[in-house]
């Protein structure tokens, strides 16, 4: 068996183990024992998580050996690594605070992230000259770790919000909470629909003309939105239902729009099914499970994760980034969209810390901020790479 196959197998193993760990964490909630006791179930849950983490570390290093460079150089590799760091950040914070609920929410988020990552091309890609530097490892790994620790603050924040927000009537807050639940469904929708059609090897090719040049575009999902003046060239595949609006620029914009619409639709379907089964708001259905959670402790974790993550992110995302940029592109700062959004993230968490430490924004306010912060990180990871394309767009 070659290293690359082994590496893929290890990642798959890690994924399954994380799934099992989630079940164990769910079982700890049902545990009637006192909160402070470290029961067998707790040991099983965290033990399984650590096992999964070790398997994923195995994936990381075998892939490194296979490709000759640290696997953090394209979208699949980076997002997978981000998921791994999220698990690591959770393990660290678990040993400080011993909150099982954190695992019950952090691991599914990590699973979703790893699932999302594996929708991107998984082949090993060559490094262009500017990426050939030790700073690739140093910069990218530190950024991923920093963002992962910040993501834990989002997890703690969302648990806090679901537990604390009054669900007896519909308010702006409950609506926003449902929007977050829906976004999670949409991500899941993306993973599901992409997996279904890629297992069927679906491929529809459209040809179209832009600037008098003949172009083709491959769809891996049935085309709801085709390119302007596009013509289907593959046989037996679905014709495009609509035409992507002309103001969408970029070579693959129609396909990206198509994928987005698919994800949002499947996500909506999943969300509606959940609503029908639960017969109440999703967050309202989760709320009773969180009775045992200590909101002050959750608030503390939410803040502590930012306090730990902010310096790590600054170091990796701004300082190491600047040192490498100076080496590779001979300027430490160039206002590339990715750089700007790292700065936006920095500004945002600086505001978070000032509001909390100087103006007493605790509890709910700070939990909402943690959610917005995570949205900014995800924006930088997904939208900036795929839409705003600059020097950092790997996929």
């Amino acid at each position, binding site marked *: 068996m070659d290293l*690359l196959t082994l590496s893929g197998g290890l990642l798959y193993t890690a994924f399954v183990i994380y799934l099992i760990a989630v079940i164990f964490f769910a079982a700890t909630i049902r545990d009637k024992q006192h909160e402070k006791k470290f029961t067998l179930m707790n040991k099983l849950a965290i033990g399984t998580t650590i096992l999964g983490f070790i398997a994923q570390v195995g994936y990381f290093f075998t892939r490194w050996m*296979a*490709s*000759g460079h640290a696997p953090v150089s394209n979208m699949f590799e980076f997002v997978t690594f981000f998921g791994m760091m999220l698990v690591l950040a959770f393990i660290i914070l678990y040993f400080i*605070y011993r909150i099982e609920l954190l695992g019950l929410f952090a691991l599914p988020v990590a699973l979703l992230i790893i699932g999302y990552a594996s929708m991107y*091309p998984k*082949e*090993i*890609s*060559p490094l*262009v*000259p*500017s990426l*050939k*530097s030790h*700073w690739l490892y140093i910069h990218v790994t530190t950024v991923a770790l920093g963002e992962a620790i910040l993501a834990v603050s989002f997890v703690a924040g969302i648990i806090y919000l679901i537990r604390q927000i009054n669900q007896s009537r519909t308010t702006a807050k409950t609506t926003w909470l449902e929007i977050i639940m829906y976004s999670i469904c949409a991500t899941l929708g993306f993973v599901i629909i992409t997996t279904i059609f890629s297992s069927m090897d679906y491929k529809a090719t459209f040809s179209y003309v832009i600037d008098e040049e003949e172009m083709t575009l491959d769809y891996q999902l049935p085309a709801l939105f085709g390119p302007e003046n596009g013509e289907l060239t593959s046989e037996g595949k679905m014709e495009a239902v609509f035409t992507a609006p002309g*103001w969408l*620029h970029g070579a693959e914009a129609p396909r990206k729009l198509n994928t987005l619409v698919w994800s949002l639709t499947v996500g909506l379907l999943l969300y509606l099914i959940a609503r029908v089964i639960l017969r109440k708001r999703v967050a309202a259905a989760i709320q009773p499970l969180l009775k045992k959670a200590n909101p*002050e*402790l959750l608030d*503390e974790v939410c803040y*502590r994760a930012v*306090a*730990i993550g*902010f*310096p790590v992110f*600054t*170091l990796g995302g*701004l*300082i190491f980034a*600047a040192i490498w940029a*100076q*080496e*590779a*592109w*001979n*300027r*430490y700062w*160039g*206002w*590339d*969209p990715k750089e*700007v*959004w790292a*700065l*936006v993230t920095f*500004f*945002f968490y*600086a*505001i978070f810390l*000032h*509001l909390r*430490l*100087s*103006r007493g924004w605790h509890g709910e306010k700070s939990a909402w901020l943690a959610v917005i912060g995570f949205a900014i990180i995800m924006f930088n990871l997904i939208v*900036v790479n795929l839409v*705003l394309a*600059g020097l950092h767009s790997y996929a």
Partner: protein
Amino acid sequence: MNTIKCSTCGHQNKEGTTICEKCGKPLDNDQQGTLLNMRYDGSSIRSKTKNRSIVDKIWNFFSSVKVGVTLIAIALVASALGTIYPQEMYIPQNVDPALHYRDQYGLSGQIYYQLGFHNLYNSWWYMVLIALIGISIFIVSIDRGVPLYKALKNQAIKRHPNFLKRQKLFGEYTAYQTEDKTRFINNLKKHRYKITEKDGHILAEKGRFSRWGPYVNHLGLIIFLLGTLFRFIPFMYVDDFVWVREGETAVIPSTSQQYYIKNEEFIFETYGNDDEDAIFEEALQNTSGPVPKHFETNAIIYEDVSKDVIGSEPELKEVKSGEIIVNEPLKINGLALYQDSYQLNEFQTMSFKLHETDDEAEEAIVEFTVDLTDPESEYVFDNGYRIELNRFYPEYELNNGEPRSVSNYPRNPGFVFFVYGPDIEEREASFLAIGQNIPSGDNQYKLSLTDFGVRDVSGLKVRKDLTLPIIGLGAFIFMIGVVQGMYWQHRRIWIHQATDRMYIACHTNKNWYGLTKEFEKLIDGTSFTMVRDQEKKNDV
């Protein structure tokens, strides 16, 4: 200046002080029962006490955290706006930005351009915004940092019972043994608390340095921002560019003609030509065009050692040689040369022959080679023929039917030749470019391209940035400050020894959870019970 006299110890406190500097008695008698505000240890803050002159008002404006946070929020939104469309530096160099934004992005692009967002980060208002943040950081640090420093430096050991009673974590103990107190103090020492004692009253303290974290990181930011300003001082910063052709020696710009660079060879490799690239096969198939693997310039740097005589020929002495690779610049005398871009296979020479138009064998009458970097204007031959290079367009294009050259680089050469000869009446003109050979009329003779030579051109960035050490220092100090303030806490525990009882109160500037956990360990082996969290009683 107004003062407030403490009713217990008689100490004269500065106006705005909320906790007596000497005995620690809360000076806000009307707020009994509520917790004390421990920020800045109750010391007098300038911005909270003075608001008379214009200076006070400006000072108070900038020292407000609300204003600071608002400024950062505006900078956040502004920065994000600049990423909607590419900035001017990322659009093609040879287009008019006004047209480019309109053509590429339509009406919204035009508005974007009109608002100046295409060059947002260099706009005056963005710089003013960052400068305002810098001023705010500076003023707030002095406003809060100095009184806090003084208050902590001179803090009293013995605190008034009311001070302890109004702390978040508080305990009152009547039945206890002396051993309990000794044990407790020993535990404090074991947990690295610094103990000071006065008449049985105790102050245990650790991690005070973490209180300076915010001021240290603010200092770092100020140094950083000043560093970026130094870039505008001419000798501190050089940003230039030079194209050097293979075999050519060019003067390095911004060195006052002191240094020259010779491009010995430019090496360019792509993926897929090597056995070790086999693992990338799948990825390479999915990309259009070759993926560059490595490129470098083998360069020699010369210094002009001729005595400064204007117009004298430079006298070149080799001072350094080596490869310039991406991520590995070549440095000379504070100047760094970076491998930036390249132009592969640029035409260097073109060879032509002259033959009779209707000669199918195209037998050459004369042959000549044009050096495209330095073309001669006339080529004279012994057999009586003479060819004049009337017009040369290094990078030729047709602009409204008129030929012109886009640049001075021979990327797509176009020529207008005049041919003179013994059997030609006046002259015969013809235009030649790649894929084109247009005679001026019914020409007797024809020119044909026979051969060409190419070479690579290496694009090098010439950089000097003396602001880097300052910026690096600022960033380093910032990181130290952030870690110092975020990863440590300032914890204090007071013991007030009354005649029949003992009070214990705890304070930390952050991470109350950690302090509570620690207190559980501190009372280990004593009869003391856990301190009460006085904030919680409202919830129950």
